[in-house]
């Protein structure tokens, strides 16, 4: 058993592009759920539109990557408006159902064979993200590696994660600046009691819509990073569990805190990869009974996701506020 490899892999996942994408998804969700109380179960839909907007613009229409990114973000805004207009006045549960359904419908449409000409359909779409990598300042020869042991990235990967984490920092800063203001106070008041906010003259629908758009665009940015990272998009990458991973990250880190979604995303990927690597190493051990080894081998990924879920359950039991949350606030829910 080589713990250097296990920790190396875990750290690599915790700081890699996947964690950046999850962090952006969770920050957006924090604006929706954490601060405004909107139960958005379709966050993956925003990532999907960010990724496909970028990919299809470049691959199908031959536009520049930068235009593609803009298209991805505009589509995210459009989804927020389309979701919000009919449902934000309804009960919170209605909104939740519509969001999860809408995201899944979009994924199925985009992945259908009828859409092959536009989105690649069930085949993934791929494009040349050269415009992004041309700006890469990291030497990227075949032997250039950054990091130690298995905690190691190529020059291209370094460029993606550098841009990604800078983006996460900037987005977090913007969210901090707008939420600590009187505007953010109105959001939180809507989360606590819409009617109280109304009785004091706040246009609840308008604030919810603003929050939905902002959080959606942040999710869309996550999709853009995803598209650039893989130079394309695949409908299977946008299944509903992406939303639930984002919720897990948010709750791990602490909802309605500024650093929570970022720390949660890092921790989520660290744990997931740590457990998976550990199981891989375990199955390779000679002393393990064959039956157990057979059971484990090949399902390390699934088991690690289950273990992350278990961690979340334990966390809810013993530290429901997440890592950074405030215990007293959580206890108020029970009153």
């Amino acid at each position, binding site marked *: 058993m080589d713990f250097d490899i296990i920790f190396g892999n875990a750290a690599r996942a915790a700081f890699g592009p996947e964690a950046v994408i999850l962090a952006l998804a969770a920050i957006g969700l924090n604006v929706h759920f954490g601060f405004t109380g909107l139960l958005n179960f379709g966050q993956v839909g925003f990532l999907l539109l960010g990724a496909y907007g970028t990919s299809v613009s470049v691959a199908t229409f031959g536009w520049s990557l930068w235009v593609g990114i803009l298209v991805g973000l505009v589509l995210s805004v459009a989804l927020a408006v389309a979701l919000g207009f009919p449902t934000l006045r309804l009960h919170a549960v209605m909104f939740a159902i519509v969001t999860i359904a809408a995201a899944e419908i979009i994924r199925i449409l985009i992945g259908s064979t009828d859409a092959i000409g536009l989105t690649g359909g069930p085949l993934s779409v791929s494009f040349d993200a050269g415009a992004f990598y041309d700006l890469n300042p990291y030497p990227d020869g075949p032997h250039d590696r950054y990091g130690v042991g298995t905690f190691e990235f190529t020059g291209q990967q370094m460029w993606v994660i550098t841009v990604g984490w800078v983006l996460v920092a900037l987005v977090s800063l913007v969210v901090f*600046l707008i939420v600590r203001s*009187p505007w953010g106070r*109105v959001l*939180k008041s809507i989360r606590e009691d819409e009617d*109280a*906010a109304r*009785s*004091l*003259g706040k246009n609840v629908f308008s604030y919810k819509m603003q929050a939905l758009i902002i959080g959606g665009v942040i999710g869309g940015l996550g999709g853009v990073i995803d598209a650039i990272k893989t130079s394309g998009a695949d409908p299977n990458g946008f299944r509903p569990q992406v939303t639930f991973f984002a919720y897990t990250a948010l709750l791990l880190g602490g909802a309605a805190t500024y650093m929570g979604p970022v720390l949660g995303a890092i921790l989520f990927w660290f744990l997931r990869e740590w457990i998976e690597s550990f199981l891989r190493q375990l199955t390779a051990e000679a002393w393990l009974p064959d039956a157990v080894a057979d059971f484990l081998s090949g399902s390390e990924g699934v088991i690690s996701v289950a273990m992350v879920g278990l961690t979340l359950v334990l966390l809810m039991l013993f530290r429901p506020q997440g890592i950074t949350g405030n215990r007293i606030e959580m206890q108020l829910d029970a009153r």
Partner: protein
Amino acid sequence: MPDELTPVPGEARAGTESGLVGAQIEPNHSVPPVAGAPKPHPILVVDELTRSFGGLRAVDVDHLEVERGVVTALIGPNGAGKTTLFNLLTGFDRADTGRWSFDGQPVSSPSPDQLARQGMIRTFQLTKSLAKLTVLDNVLLGAPGQAGERLSAAPFRSRWRDQEEANVELADELLDRFNLAHMRDELAGTLSGGQRKLLEVARALMADPVMIMLDEPMAGVNPALAQSLMRHITQLAFEGLTVVFIEHAMDVVTGISDWVVVLAQGRVIAEGPPWKVIHDHQVIDAYLGRRRAGGGS
């Protein structure tokens, strides 16, 4: 029914613009104590307002006027429709029929936030404190016209800091008066029931209302403090604020109200100065649950 006394809505507007409204009005001397009586300077005029829940007619008001700048108590037995009437007037519930005007403006499509911005501020019988906001933030939320509540200004503290500081000063004064200063930085969810009532009234006053509608504001508040707060509210009425409050305790009603409106089974069955209304046998019957026997005061 005093149909012949129904005023034209234009009168309300005349009252609005006559300057020194409020201070010199003593409706108990000039207005006949009959249900639906017209007032010299009504801020609120309600006509033919009804609301049914299934077969139950919760509100059925033919005509009601509320005088500007005075303290009006809305009383009536449990289930009389007092809260429902508040909900209708403030846009939190939809009327089946009826129309009303507020501050000279006919209310055509009642929306709670818009009416609140026009100065009609209400509190709730079941308090709605914002549990995970601090007590101070609860009150600050009431402040009207805060530029920082617009997204375009929110990230730039310099655009709203001065206003916020002035609001904090005002909020601290209110919290002090409502015996909540020591809880200022605690989360509102940690307050007791009575303290939440107080917080809600403070928050409503922070909104700088033209007319404040309080639904049993002092229920659960210790009597001494309740007395002092109601005196504060009468003082505000003297300065021009219109107060309508729902209350069951008769000593509070007689102590601070200028005018009393009695609701029973959704209808206005009597109104008048408090000393007169509480001896009205129709009112007494309504409270004791007897069917209305006919005849007046």
